């Protein structure tokens, strides 16, 4: 009984520590974003009233936005609203920021998830093979692919991809999430068209959505793959040079057992961190990919808001992105527990 109580207290203490750490992280994130939003050379008042407004109109809107109050007061008001689940209204279109984010985030989630799946499915085995066959032509090719993925500007690669696969070959759909014939046909449930079309059991819309998402997702997948391949290769090389691998081989274990049963098993924790970080960066929204492919995701939403000085939208987007990182961190911690007995 005492043992159970101790375990419970341990879990409670861990939960409280995690919660406090999340709260401090989010508060810090908000503070930094808020301050940057106030000092950056973009004027939210001009964005609303326009270049030709009189000084009286300018001053009225300035006060209306609460910009005449001390920055700490403005920040405390904002925190209070956020704690009540209110990100405020967009300064430009006066729509609730939470509604806008609920509309754009699923588009990014869908794209990023498909991208990371491609990255993991292709990148992990490639990294392992590359490490096992170190110095072979497969290794050279894998390293070259990873290098290209690291160094090629995504803007250029995206445009080339569009030109070749959409413009010339016609294999995939063009910019946008759907052809216009299919817009507003299926009811919005999750905001992810692939999922919604499955729920609606509409194969035609699913196919069309897939034709539109496949190219940007492959592009993002390629960049993730480049990172994951490189890291997997590096982790595997470290393991393969360990003494326990030599012992396993001396014991007569098959190569498959040595590589996948021993070496790969020991890099899973590190790999989870790499994949989580990679996924998080895709969920932030790849702005350039979203612009080229006219993909209405959170990256282009926050960027447009930033350039238009719509700070409520920027802060709302930042909170969501911050939460994604926090959630993925927690998920990684949980997975560590599963894969690494030492962290249990």
């Amino acid at each position, binding site marked *: 009984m005492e043992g159970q109580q101790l375990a419970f207290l341990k879990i409670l203490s861990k939960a409280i520590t995690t919660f406090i750490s999340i709260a401090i992280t989010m508060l810090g994130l908000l503070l930094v974003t808020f301050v940057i939003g106030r000092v950056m050379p973009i004027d939210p008042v001009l964005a609303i009233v326009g270049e030709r*407004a009189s000084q009286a109109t*300018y001053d009225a809107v300035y006060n209306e936005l609460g910009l005449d109050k001390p920055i700490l007061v403005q920040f405390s008001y904002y925190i209070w609203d956020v704690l009540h689940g209110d990100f405020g209204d967009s300064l430009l279109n006066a729509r609730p920021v939470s509604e806008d984010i609920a509309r754009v985030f699923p588009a990014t989630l869908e794209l990023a998830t498909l991208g990371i799946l491609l990255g993991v499915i292709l990148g992990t085995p490639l990294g392992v093979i590359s490490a096992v066959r170190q110095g072979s032509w497969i290794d050279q090719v894998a390293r070259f692919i990873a290098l290209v993925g690291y160094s090629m500007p995504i803007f250029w690669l995206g445009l080339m991809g569009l030109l070749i696969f959409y*413009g010339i*070959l016609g294999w995939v*759909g063009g*910019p946008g999430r759907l052809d216009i014939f299919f817009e507003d046909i299926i009811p919005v449930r999750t905001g992810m068209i692939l999922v919604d079309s499955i729920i609606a059991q509409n194969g035609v819309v699913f196919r069309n959505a897939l034709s539109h998402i496949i190219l940007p997702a492959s592009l993002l997948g390629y960049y993730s793959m480049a990172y994951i391949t490189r890291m997997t290769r590096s982790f595997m090389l470290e393991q393969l040079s360990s003494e326990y691998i030599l012992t396993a081989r001396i014991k007569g274990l098959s190569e498959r057992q040595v590589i996948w049963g021993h070496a790969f098993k020991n890099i899973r924790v590190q790999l989870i961190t790499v994949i989580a970080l990679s996924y998080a960066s895709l969920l932030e929204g790849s702005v350039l990919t979203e612009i*080229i*492919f006219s993909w*209405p995701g959170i990256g282009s939403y926050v960027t447009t808001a930033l350039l238009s000085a719509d700070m409520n939208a920027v802060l709302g987007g930042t909170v969501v992105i911050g939460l994604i990182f926090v959630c993925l961190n927690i998920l990684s911690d949980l997975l560590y527990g599963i894969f690494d007995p030492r962290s249990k």
Partner: protein
Amino acid sequence: MINLYRVFYRCLLAASLAFASLTSFADTPDDTLVVALRIDDITTIDPAESFEFAGSDVSRNVYQKLVNFDPFDLDAGYQPEIAESWSVSADGRSITFTIRDGLVFSSGNPVTAEDVEFSLRRAVALEKTPSFILTQFGFSAENLDETIMQSENTVTITTDKRYATSFVLNCLTATIGGIVDKKTVMANEVNGDMGNAWLKTNSAGSGPYMLSSWKPNESVALTANPNFSGQIPAMSRVIIRHVQESASQRLLMERGDIDVARNLNSDDIKGLRDADGVRIIDELRGRLMYFALNQKHPELSKLKVRQAVKYLVDYKAMESSFLDGQYVIQQNFLPRTFLGAVDENPFTLDIEKAKGLLAEANVDQLEIEVGVREAQERIEIAQSLQNTFAQAGITLNITVGTGKQILGRYRSRDLDVYLGAWGPDYPDPHTNAGTFAYNPENSDAANATGLLAWRNSWDTGGLTEKTAAAVEESDRDKRAEMYAEIQANFRETSPFTIMFQRIEQAAVQDNVDNLFLGGATTAATYWTVTK
């Protein structure tokens, strides 16, 4: 190796088939117009608040006005639309509009004089950004009962003083003149907002289309208004898709997935000129590119210096190189096609003449700063000026910044030179005359930041009075002559160097006819389009 090649080709074939099975290509539907356009400037669809380019396009197709432009004949000026006719009182202050019978809103409610009175009063009372277009006539939230009045089938507006009738009517053709359905709007009123929140994302007009959806930064969908009193548009749906990149718009055009691409850069326009089934249309728009000298600067305030810099601009080289097809030379503050516009462009690059004028002004080796907002074409113009100014001994230091940085300094009279663009707010010459050549109080205390003449500390030397007189002249031809005279004086004496007027180039599929982008005076019309 042979096996490897075989595997490679099989993979390629499989990939081709898999991809090919994903897509089914067809032209856009016969009854649907698909437009690629940057629509991230739309903040609202409410005509009392909308003041952006893409929003004006939507409004033009959704709302009717008392008077409006005929897209087939923009030069004819305003024509009756909701107003069947109008009469002007003897003192020139009151205009009484007789409302046309038989017009119906998309809701099915008839268009009445009450709706007209409500719409105009609402636009003034809400005091949103474009409300100045109406309040400049003396309307205010406090005097609406006396200034905008309905009586049976007529609506009378009474201005604070006599204005040219053409000026008042031109202003009513602006987006803010859109007439909304009072019953529908007030049914959606929240906290006394006169339906403003609801009208941001919904429509209540009597135009050829109604708004079916607006997804910010994504798309606008218009559906033909089944109750439209005129000819039902051939395009029963108009989809305006936000496509940010010029290259993406071009690809969509080449694949036939869109009918119109409206934000193509000059390279993509050139590329599409030779494409099969695509043609390019050009229309002069109202935006002007100019630079201005701050008259607080001791050297720049000299008349000869103001004149000299107008000969230090390589207009032709810029027009034919990086501005190719996107801008045309225009050295007057009224865009071509406006009432009173003139076609006289006397300045060309003439370094020697400029040097002579600078010498007469005893100016040698001047160093000044030009402020430019971070837009590619403006920066390129500034660089060209830097080069030609240097040939006459003027060092031009370019400061590039955001709107807040540059406009903030311009509005507080802090820049030596400002290089930027200006577009008319409404299709009347006073919109530009009233800012370029009008400055009744030039002191810092006046703080008239909305006037370009004030921002440049320019006492207009009599042009303010002439501008005020022109806006009251009721004879249209005489009024046009007055603006021509003001512009002649302005060209020679003002610290403004007007350089170029914008041309909008759009690519359209060959089967698309009767698309009008709106010229310099109004916005795009989609209801006229046929395929």
